[in-house]
């Protein structure tokens, strides 16, 4: 760590804080406007809502509690509040000198399915704090398209610029050249370590209850930490504060039920989802199909309760539990079982002190485990991997005036990584890495004049195992070009103290391993530059460039073999790499024609002394071009057409060049060591796929809303290559293993 960098960052922070305090005590003739922004349907606060004053070049964001504050010249001002998925709210305010007045905004959810609405006088704004690099994923919009795949949270995120999917079968997120473990996944503020079902095909987030998904693609704020690259912050609904409601959905893959509503002092929400594959599996078994599991199911359960403990106090309890369970017969005498799942629990107490100051105190626990086992008669080979993370956090947010915002927080916790391997009840390898950890951060946002906004942050993290103390400065500068366009430059240092071991094919085997003595944390330097603008009333355009380095990434040696008796550090090899790219995102969410186009031009490469003679080579998910076009056309009052087109240039792979057949003296069979070409020097064919659907909406018996939807995944049946399978016996051959074929589906939905 360069301590001069830290010193400069600290001095910058001190400058901001001093400046903020000075302005807080200054008296001028401006008036103060403040208030809270809430969701009209549920009564919940809408954090990060954009607050724009007409004829002013810059805008503000409400804090996480939906609170905002402005200092305005005396006179009449028009304030517009915008939040993705909600109709804009406008207020005309007569500001008096040296006077404060409260202006609360209540935003109504936009009926995007029927969205031919154009909000007059409320064009899309360039949001200074949620500008390029940070995106509100349009979950509601994508859910409304009804796709079997894209209504999944992670599948939706994969459509954003800078985010790539490794295959049709993986919901893993590769954000700006990072591997999936470099993205911090938070559900209601709690880290989830393996948020997948069906061995990676879907994420564990129930789309019925997801309220918002914020994606920080890079250079994320100091309030977050522990990952090299990015953050996905998923917020579930805390329940409807106004009326009791629910839904039940039955399907061949899974079924869902939700219930939410008010109680005497707040609200509650309960959601359960379980796979319903048993009848299908039973039919397949009765047809004597091969490779059918003895048993398979997954489920997830979400529960939350919000308690209004006073006019300024709010307590929220949340629980989350997910599990996948498989039993698979290999033959008459052999069986394979795999269980994996996550559990989280959190209690959070938010308190507001007169609007300008708020605090949040939380305690959380997160657990991830997987237990694969292979049985062969009385002999068994089994593994048991666990991550257990218990933490407490305190955060403060202070808005001394309309131009400044200060945030600070500390957290402390204990995380353990346990890995046990055994044969026949004898432990052959055991690793227990326990870490106490603490982190603290300071973050200051400061408006400088009408056009500039600075955001400086510093985070410090300490891990006990190895006694690693790391400082992470972050700085973002916004410049508003006009009332509807801004540029943003960011830079930051990031550390990661754990690494995910995954095959990228079946997520149920995923194992997290920790830093320790002689296994230092990975670190990354990130830089980004972005431009965002609104034009033609309803269009929004984002374009940006990023560059990031990655160092000391520790990877489990795939050839390490039996770990018994080895020092922990000998299980790994270390890599470094870099990623660079350009992103473009063009969107329009209002009118008869809606949708977005996201494009990424990028590369990610790495190197290691153990691979490719320490020369840089493309990472497995390096992809030069990545394009997604999502479009929805409202044909009439009842008919709607939607489509998703994806294109990606071919991913790299290592081509076998040849081999040799040995007369091996150890086994007297004929092993074939394969001579390979340059690591990832070859490319698979380009990937492209079109999904399309048409929806007829109406009312059944004129009472119940109904929707009939015909949808085709992979319309023109492009056989995209997942990977090549090579055989090395006497007739060496190459076979393309392809991904999803054309899949038609018909859905009928009743809503009441």
């Amino acid at each position, binding site marked *: 760590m360069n301590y001069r960098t830290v010193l400069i960052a600290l001095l910058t922070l001190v400058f901001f804080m001093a400046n903020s305090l000075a302005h807080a005590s200054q008296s001028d003739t401006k008036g103060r406007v403040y208030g809270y922004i809430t969701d009209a349907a549920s009564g919940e606060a809408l954090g990060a809502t954009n607050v724009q004053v007409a004829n002013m070049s810059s805008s503000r964001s409400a804090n996480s509690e939906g609170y905002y504050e402005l200092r305005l010249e005396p006179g009449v001002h028009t304030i517009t509040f915008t939040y993705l998925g909600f109709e804009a709210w406008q207020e005309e305010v007569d500001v008096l000198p040296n006077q404060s007045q409260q202006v609360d905004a209540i935003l109504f959810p936009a009926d995007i399915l029927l969205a031919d609405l154009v909000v007059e006088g409320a064009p899309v704004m360039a949001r200074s704090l949620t500008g390029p690099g940070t995106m509100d994923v349009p979950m509601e919009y994508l859910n409304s398209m009804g796709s079997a795949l894209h209504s999944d949270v992670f599948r939706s995120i994969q459509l954003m610029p800078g985010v790539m999917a*490794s295959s049709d079968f993986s919901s893993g997120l590769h954000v700006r050249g990072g591997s999936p473990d470099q993205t911090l996944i938070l559900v209601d503020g709690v880290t989830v370590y393996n948020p997948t079902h069906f061995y990676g095909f879907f994420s564990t987030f129930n789309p019925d209850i997801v309220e918002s998904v914020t994606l920080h693609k890079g250079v994320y704020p100091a309030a977050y930490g522990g990952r090299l690259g990015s953050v996905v912050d998923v917020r579930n609904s805390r329940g409807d504060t106004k009326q009791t409601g629910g839904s039940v959905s039955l399907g061949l893959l899974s079924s869902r039920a939700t219930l939410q509503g008010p109680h005497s002092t707040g609200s509650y929400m309960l959601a359960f989802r379980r796979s319903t594959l048993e009848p299908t599996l039973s039919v397949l078994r009765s047809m004597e199909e091969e490779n059918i599991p003895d048993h398979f199911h997954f489920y997830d359960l979400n529960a939350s309760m919000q308690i209004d403990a006073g006019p300024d106090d709010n307590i929220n309890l949340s629980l989350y539990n997910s599990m996948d369970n498989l039993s698979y017969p290999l033959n008459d005498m*052999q069986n394979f079982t795999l269980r994996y799942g996550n559990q989280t629990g959190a209690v959070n107490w938010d308190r507001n002190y007169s609007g300008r100051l708020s605090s949040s105190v939380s305690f959380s626990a997160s657990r991830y485990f997987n237990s694969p086992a292979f049985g062969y008669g009385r002999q068994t080979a089994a593994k048991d991997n666990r991550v257990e993370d218990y933490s407490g956090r305190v955060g403060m947010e202070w808005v001394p005036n309309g131009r400044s915002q200060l945030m600070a927080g500390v957290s402390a916790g204990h995380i353990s990584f346990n890995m046990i391997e055994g044969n026949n009840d*004898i432990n052959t390898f055991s690793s227990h890495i326990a870490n106490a950890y603490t982190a603290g951060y300071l973050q200051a946002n400061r408006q400088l004049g009408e056009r500039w906004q600075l955001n400086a942050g510093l985070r410090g993290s300490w891990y006990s195992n190895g006694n690693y103390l790391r400082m992470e400065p972050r700085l973002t500068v916004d410049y508003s070009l006009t009332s509807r366009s801004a540029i943003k430059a960011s830079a930051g240092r990031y550390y990661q103290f754990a690494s995910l071991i995954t095959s990228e094919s079946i997520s149920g085997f995923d194992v997290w391993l920790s830093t320790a003595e002689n296994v230092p944390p990975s670190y990354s330097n990130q830089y980004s530059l972005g431009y965002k603008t609104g034009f*033609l009333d309803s269009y929004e355009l984002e374009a940006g460039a990023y560059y990031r380095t990655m160092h000391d990434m520790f990877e489990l040696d795939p050839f390490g073999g039996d770990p018994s008796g080895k020092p922990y550090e000998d299980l790994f090899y270390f890599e470094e790499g870099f990623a660079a790219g350009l992103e473009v995102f063009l969107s329009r969410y209002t009118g008869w024609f809606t949708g977005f186009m996201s494009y990424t031009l990028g590369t990610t490469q790495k190197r290691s002394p153990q691979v490719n003679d320490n020369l840089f080579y493309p990472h497995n998910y390096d992809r030069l071009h990545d394009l997604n076009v999502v479009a929805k056309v409202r044909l009439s009052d009842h008919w709607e057409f939607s489509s998703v087109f994806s294109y990606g240039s071919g991913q790299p792979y290592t081509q076998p060049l040849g081999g040799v057949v040995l007369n091996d003296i150890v086994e007297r069979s004929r092993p074939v060591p394969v001579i390979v070409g340059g690591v990832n020097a070859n490319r698979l064919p380009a990937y492209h796929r079109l999904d399309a659907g048409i929806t007829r909406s109406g009312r059944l018996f004129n009472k119940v809303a109904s929707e009939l939807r015909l949808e085709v995944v992979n319309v023109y049946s492009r056989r995209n290559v997942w990977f090549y399978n090579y055989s090395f016996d006497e007739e060496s051959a190459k076979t393309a293993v392809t991904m999803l074929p054309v899949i038609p589906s018909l859905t009928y939905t009743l809503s009441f």
Partner: protein
Amino acid sequence: MAMKLGKPFYYLAFLCLLMATKGCDLYEIEEYEGEVFVYSQMTAMDPLPRVELLMTSPHGEDFAPNKMFDGEADVTVYLLDQQGGREAEYNYHNSREGRYTYPQENGNMARPLRTYELVVKLPESGKVISSFTTVPDTFRVVHTVRDTVTFMQADPLEYHLTESAYPGRQAHYMLATKSLDAENHGLTPKYESSDLFRPGFTHIRSEITNQAAFKNQSSLIMVPYPWDNIAHYGPNQLLFHAIDDNMYDFYRTLDHQTGSQNLAPGEIRGIKYNTKGGPGLFGSMATATANAYIYKATKD
């Protein structure tokens, strides 16, 4: 109201164009070239082994066994002293196409815990392929707990062995099983449907196991023999191989070359050869043996 895009957008668009035109083909694709593959494995206290020179085949063609190098080669093995100097020289003779042997009548044995160097010179191409191996220390079976079992109906075969030794690390073992009467005894269930066993193939082996994986008592290691390392019913010979670094690297990369916990589907990595000048394996091991008899379970 229509609005023009700002200058920053055009700068970024220009950067996109620049990267799109310059960003392709960052990496050179290699083409296949036929290579000589050197293969030899010593066994402690056995005569110096044969050295084979094989030819690689391009993928897409038939991978024929016994595709030997048919050119000229000078093959020499050196015994090194403690300082790395050459203490003795063993010149090999070309006995058959691609096969080189050291006359057995000279009586030179592979010495445990000593280092040997193999040098293969190919005059036609000017290539020199070389490698070093340090021979693991000998060990033996000292106690048989169970050597006759009904397949998977009771506790497995179990043997107690002395420890092997290797400079600077714990011992690594491979367990191999050789049927002594494959023609008259069937295959165990796991291998019945396998295409591994064709006529003439009688051996199988385990993946590499570290010494720490076995229980250790009074400097003896206790090895319960894994069921899935038994392919044939009837009489079997069990071979416990303690292996050198070259075999360790070669077999652990060979076993997971096309699949491992953290390799992506279809991902293939290169083999770790520990040779200079070309691919190959010059390995060594120490071996202990035991006999076992496996009965097939009778159905009730």
